[in-house]
């Protein structure tokens, strides 16, 4: 039972930290490519969500209409927080949001006057294949 003295154990699944670093980079590369390919070629629709918490003032497009990139999509009212001298100042700002993609408008989900939480859908556009929504 004189157990042979083995070398000290391996550190990670990988042979060394360098291997692990490289593996992490390869993993990220694969993930990024997967996400980009999925978004560019597979996603059927593009949902435009609220960029932050706020209120819809008006919507410039109608269902089944077309929209070009850069055309106004909707107007959004947000509370802007600003730190001045250690105090929070809030003011209401209205912003025109332009479309980042062109395509057919499939559905308008929100109505003017809706209070929306960040990320809630406003408009659903058809996805043009090969572009990043």
């Amino acid at each position, binding site marked *: 039972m*004189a*157990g042979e*003295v*083995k070398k*000290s*154990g391996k*550190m990670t699944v990988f042979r*060394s*930290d360098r291997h692990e*670093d490289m593996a992490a980079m390869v993993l990220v590369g694969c993930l990024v490519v997967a996400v980009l390919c999925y978004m560019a070629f597979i996603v059927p629709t593009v949902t435009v969500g609220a960029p932050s918490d706020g209120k819809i003032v008006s919507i410039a497009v109608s269902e089944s209409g077309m929209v070009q990139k850069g055309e106004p999509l909707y107007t959004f009212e947000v509370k802007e927080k600003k730190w001045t001298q250690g105090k929070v100042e809030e003011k209401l700002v209205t912003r025109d949001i332009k479309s980042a993609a062109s395509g057919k408008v499939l559905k308008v989900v929100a109505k003017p006057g809706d209070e929306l939480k960040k990320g809630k859908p406003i408009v659903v556009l058809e996805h043009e294949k090969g572009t990043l929504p």
Partner: protein
Amino acid sequence: MTGVLVVLDESGKAIGQGLALARELGQRAVGLFVYERGWNVYIGHDWLSGSNARATFLEYVEEHEKAAEAELKARFLAEAQAAGVEAQFEAICCDDLEHLTDAVIREAREGGYGHIVCADPLTRGLSPRRGGTAALMRGAPCPVVLAGQTVAAA
């Protein structure tokens, strides 16, 4: 099979006690050096280690272990000869996930030893961080003699 298993550690406290016990019982003494392998798990906490820092460190630890083995082996065998006790030296390596004391217990069971002599606190590898001799006391298949406690001195 009987014998006294002397767990060697950096403090060396167990050596004298173990050899004395072996002579008293008229049995052989086996000095056991266990290679600590838990380091890679122990420093697994480390989240963003600079490249190769870990590898260099583990190599460094291994060097240390080898030096400790050589030193303790020489010391144990020399003291045994001086005491006139039949002695052997063994080095084993605990498994990746095992604590050092688990390896001692395994060895004691497989070897069928009559006694384990161990320093307390056990200053070997990561043992001081991992409950020392407590696990050994719980799991040992034979009586354990803890050497080096300074109760009387207090």
